[in-house]
């Protein structure tokens, strides 16, 4: 029984590993650097609520939530501002990550991690939810699951309607 299950799982792993082509990063420019003060001013100028995802290319859990964020942006991008903040990372790593997951929303580079420190988040990833003009509504430390993301996005929509 166990041997068969192990074979099935191994088979799945082998099959799924056949799509491992390196992502093309030629169309992606360097991410603009920003600090906490600059980011706060950026959010204050926004008329729409915002979902801010703090990530890094070396962060394993960030990879797990990236497809969900891409999907959420595709669905709610017209009503909610999606912003990525790459922390403690390299520009090359950031570009590869963005190319791999196709995150087509605004991205900033925060090498010294000043933004999550300013808002009180810990660890990576972090997802922060802001009302229009940058009022912090909620911080979700760790991987955001679909239900939490959907609920908090709905909360932003309800609060700003």
């Amino acid at each position, binding site marked *: 029984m166990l041997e068969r299950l192990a074979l099935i799982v191994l088979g799945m792993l082998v099959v*799924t590993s056949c799509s491992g082509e390196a992502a093309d990063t030629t169309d992606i420019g360097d991410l603009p650097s920003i600090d906490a003060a600059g980011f706060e001013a950026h959010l204050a100028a926004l008329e729409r609520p915002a979902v801010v995802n703090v990530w890094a290319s070396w962060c394993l*859990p960030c990879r*797990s939530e990236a497809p*969900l964020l891409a999907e959420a942006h595709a669905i709610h991008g017209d009503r909610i501002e999606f912003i990525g903040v790459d922390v403690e990372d390299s520009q090359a790593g950031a570009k590869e990550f963005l190319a791999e997951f196709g995150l087509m929303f605004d991205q900033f580079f925060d090498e010294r991690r000043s933004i999550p420190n300013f808002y009180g988040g810990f660890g990576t990833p972090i997802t922060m939810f802001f009302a229009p003009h940058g009022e912090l509504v909620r911080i979700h*430390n760790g991987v955001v699951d679909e239900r939490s993301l959907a609920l908090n996005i709905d909360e932003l929509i309800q609060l700003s309607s």
Partner: protein
Amino acid sequence: MEFTLLWAVLTAVALGWVGLRIWDERLPEDPFDLLIGAALVALVVGRLTAMVSQGVSPITNPGDIIVIRGGVHTGAAAITFLTALLWKTREDRTALDALAPAILLALAGWHAGCLWRDACLGAPSDLPWAWALPGSTVNRHPVEIYAAIGLALGGWLVASLPWRIWLRAGSALVVASGVRLLTETMRPSITGGPTRWYVAGMIAGVILVIAGPRLIRSRSRAPT
């Protein structure tokens, strides 16, 4: 944050254990180990399937497998759980029926575990028992509590059914899928939720209830 998920899992395990104590008629040997083993295999397969469907290769990103919060494919996990149970109890035709009420109670525990995770709420509601997220003024359905109550009542209902091959197992599948399907409309979702899997689960459950005895009999008559 991740530890809150662990508390929810422990709540499910605890209620499953209670279910096996309450409804202990005709149980197979080591029923608790059986359920835990099948659930673990289902979790791994469900997680791998979710990763593949998200375009993340488990070979190049093996560390992602343990990031359960990144998503577990409901359909793949449910099918694996039932297949593993069927395989392990293949000599005992009433095992699935005997385990069914406890499985429903364990599922109720998983949903009630939302209280640890602060993740019980769904769509906005004006009903008197609706409550709001901390710091919010928007009251919402405690949808996971609805699901927990529905599944616990379902467990009690299934346990009161008469003994007939796969009647309890099929009914439990209908109850589990039906409760999830009914409450799904109250859950905010990005992907729309695994609604098709719930419908498929209900249909499979009805087929088991209606055709289960015939399937068993035809298998018994087949030459070996």
